[in-house]
């Protein structure tokens, strides 16, 4: 146990000082803070623009020119003006249309609406430089329709009271009972990415660390000082603690920035961005799945690192392992689109993918407790089995110098050498 902690401590101290760790931590912190701050800045800019528009003088307001061939809206010009307080509505004669069009095309500061009747229904031609400038067609539809309908109803001698009632909007109050889909979607992508990179990065770190001890031949001294299993487990744990600290730091800084700066009314395409699914429970589960997922991958990565004799071989040796990680990542990546699909449920049970899949589903949907428990059990049992195998393979691989060992050869040798 003492040796385990010594290896852990040394691995941690050795790696925490490394430039790669310091720089990657800083970069990730900057990204997290930016991800939280940018929506806040955008929202602030938008609202200050709105404030500015409201206080505009009438002379500074954009002009909306109205040509009325229908005759319905001329008489209700005041009503139209009331409905578009941000614009100045001006009635003009039909013959000015062409020169106005030229002006709009050139300057784009004013807008032109030509109203006419086709089969007793008002038709509007709306001229503007770019769609999105000026009053929205939806708003126009509402205003002009209301004026037209009021007029028609009045002609039919309907009482004012009834007209008001008939034209009032119905109210629809949306009450979402499940988890916010959009917020959950982005959050789960975020979580899967973070988990994947953390697990991949630190697993890779274990591999590199083992390989460097082997290529520098420190290994010979180490294995005669400590049992190989202690080195493997201590190293895995040391890197894991480092990863955990980095991950916790990111989550902590992210949470603090979120509470301080993230706008409550932030929307994407009009949909609320709700991060309420980041409950303490889901946070704890993310940490647990990181620890377990990392342990599983790191134990395999350590063996890969041990098969290498020369530093140049590290990358090619890592290839199959990288494939496994990336395939697992994409398999679970598919799960947050439809977090309750069969694929997602399967990914939550496979030990290689569950560390990515379950946390993302926890954020975006309600995962039944039995699925979490089963997935954790499978993962833990797999870790124990893989761990035992890794210790065995590692002990043999670590002392083999010469050509890079293939995993199949390694299995053969370890079988032959069963004491």
């Amino acid at each position, binding site marked *: 146990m003492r040796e385990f902690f010594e290896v852990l401590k040394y691995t941690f101290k050795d790696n925490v000082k490394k430039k790669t760790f310091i720089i990657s931590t800083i970069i990730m912190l900057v990204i997290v803070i930016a991800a939280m701050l940018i929506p806040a800045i955008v929202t602030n800019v938008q609202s200050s623009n709105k404030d500015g528009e409201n206080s505009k003088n009438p002379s500074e307001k954009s002009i909306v020119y109205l040509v009325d061939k229908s005759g319905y809206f001329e008489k209700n010009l005041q009503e139209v003006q009331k409905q578009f307080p941000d614009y100045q509505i001006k009635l003009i004669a039909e013959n000015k249309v062409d020169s106005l069009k030229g002006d709009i095309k050139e300057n784009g500061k004013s807008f032109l609406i030509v109203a006419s009747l086709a089969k007793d229904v008002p038709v509007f031609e709306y001229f503007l430089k770019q769609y999105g400038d000026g009053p929205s067609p939806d708003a126009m539809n509402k205003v002009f329709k209301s004026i037209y309908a009021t007029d028609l109803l009045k002609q039919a001698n309907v009482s004012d009271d009834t007209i008001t009632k008939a034209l009032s909007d119905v109210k629809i109050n949306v009450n979402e009972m499940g988890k916010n889909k959009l917020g959950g979607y982005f959050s789960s992508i975020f979580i899967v990415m973070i988990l994947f990179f953390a697990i991949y990065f630190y697993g890779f770190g274990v591999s590199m660390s083992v390989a460097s001890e082997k290529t520098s031949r420190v290994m010979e001294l180490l294995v005669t*000082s400590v049992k190989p299993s202690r080195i493997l487990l201590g190293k895995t744990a040391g890197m894991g603690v480092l990863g955990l600290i980095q991950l916790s730091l990111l989550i902590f800084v992210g949470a603090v920035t979120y509470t301080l700066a993230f706008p409550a009314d932030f929307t994407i395409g009009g949909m609320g961005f709700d991060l309420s699914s980041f409950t303490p429970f889901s946070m704890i589960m993310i940490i647990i799945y990181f620890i377990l997922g990392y342990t599983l991958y790191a134990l395999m990565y350590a063996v890969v690192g041990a098969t290498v004799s020369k530093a140049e071989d590290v990358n090619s040796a890592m290839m199959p392992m990288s494939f496994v990680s990336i395939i697992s990542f994409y398999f679970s990546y598919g799960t947050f689109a439809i977090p309750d699909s069969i694929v997602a449920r399967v990914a939550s049970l496979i030990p290689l993918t569950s560390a990515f899949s379950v946390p993302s589903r926890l954020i975006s949907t309600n995962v039944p407790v039995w699925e979490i428990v089963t997935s954790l059990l499978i993962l833990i049992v797999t870790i124990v089995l893989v761990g035992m195998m890794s210790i065995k393979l590692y002990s043999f691989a670590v002392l083999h110098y010469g050509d890079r060992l293939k995993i199949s050869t390694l299995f053969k040798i370890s079988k032959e050498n069963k004491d």
Partner: protein
Amino acid sequence: MGLLVDNVSKKFGEKLVVNNINFEMKEPGVFGLLGTNGAGKTTTIRMILNIVKKDSGAIKWNNKPTAGQVTNFGYLPEERGLYPKVKVMEQLTYFARLRGITHEKAKKDITYWLERLEASEYTNMLAEKLSKGNQQKIQFIASIIHDPELIFMDEPFSGLDPVNTDLFKGVIYELINKKRYIIMSTHQMTTVEEFCRDILILKNGDTVLSGNLKDIKHSYGRNNLIINCEGNIVELAAEEGITSFNQNAEGYEFKISNEEQAYKLLEKILSKRLLLDKFEIREPSLHEIFIEKVGDAK
């Protein structure tokens, strides 16, 4: 107390690397493991240390298999194995801590050894910045920092200049006086003659010679005659029936079958009044024995 290597063999694939090696080290001191490159010395050491699994035989330290006691031994491997990007003090402390030495004691002992080996100035340097000889010093400290009773030294003097070689020798003498058991593999025959009580010579995995160094030399007899003098004495020697010789810059080295031949030759030289610098009858050197036992294969 003692190390016993009993009928140990090892194959790498089809190649027999060590064939039935046997030796026993009952008393403290230095045991010399000799042989040409690739003779199986390092493999033998690694088998004792359980780094390489032996195919057959038994290896025991204090009557118990060595496999379970490896962490008590000291090991100076043939190739340098240090963390290149870690400071000397830091990695030595780590190695000491792995052996269960307290932090304070480790620091104290490392400082002592760095001073003893005249390497104090490297305490806070990265290992990769050190010369080969200085790295060897650090490696040496790593192998004895836990004061082991049994120490393996694979080519301890490689890369060392004469000054540092003497420094190392001083430490090895100190270890011998402290009753440590040292298994040393080396190519430097003079070193072996200086330190080793018992030796074993390997050739392609086979033991070609093994036993007490003095006894071995004795068994060869005093059949080396060294004469440094003026003039050509080859003909004089031939008259006495001494025909096998080597000539070097200093003089002659004859092979004699008995000492009588030598004295007769001496009389002749003296009667001819040739100026004589050196006359010596001695046992063959380990170098000669080694060449005789191993060299003819080449």
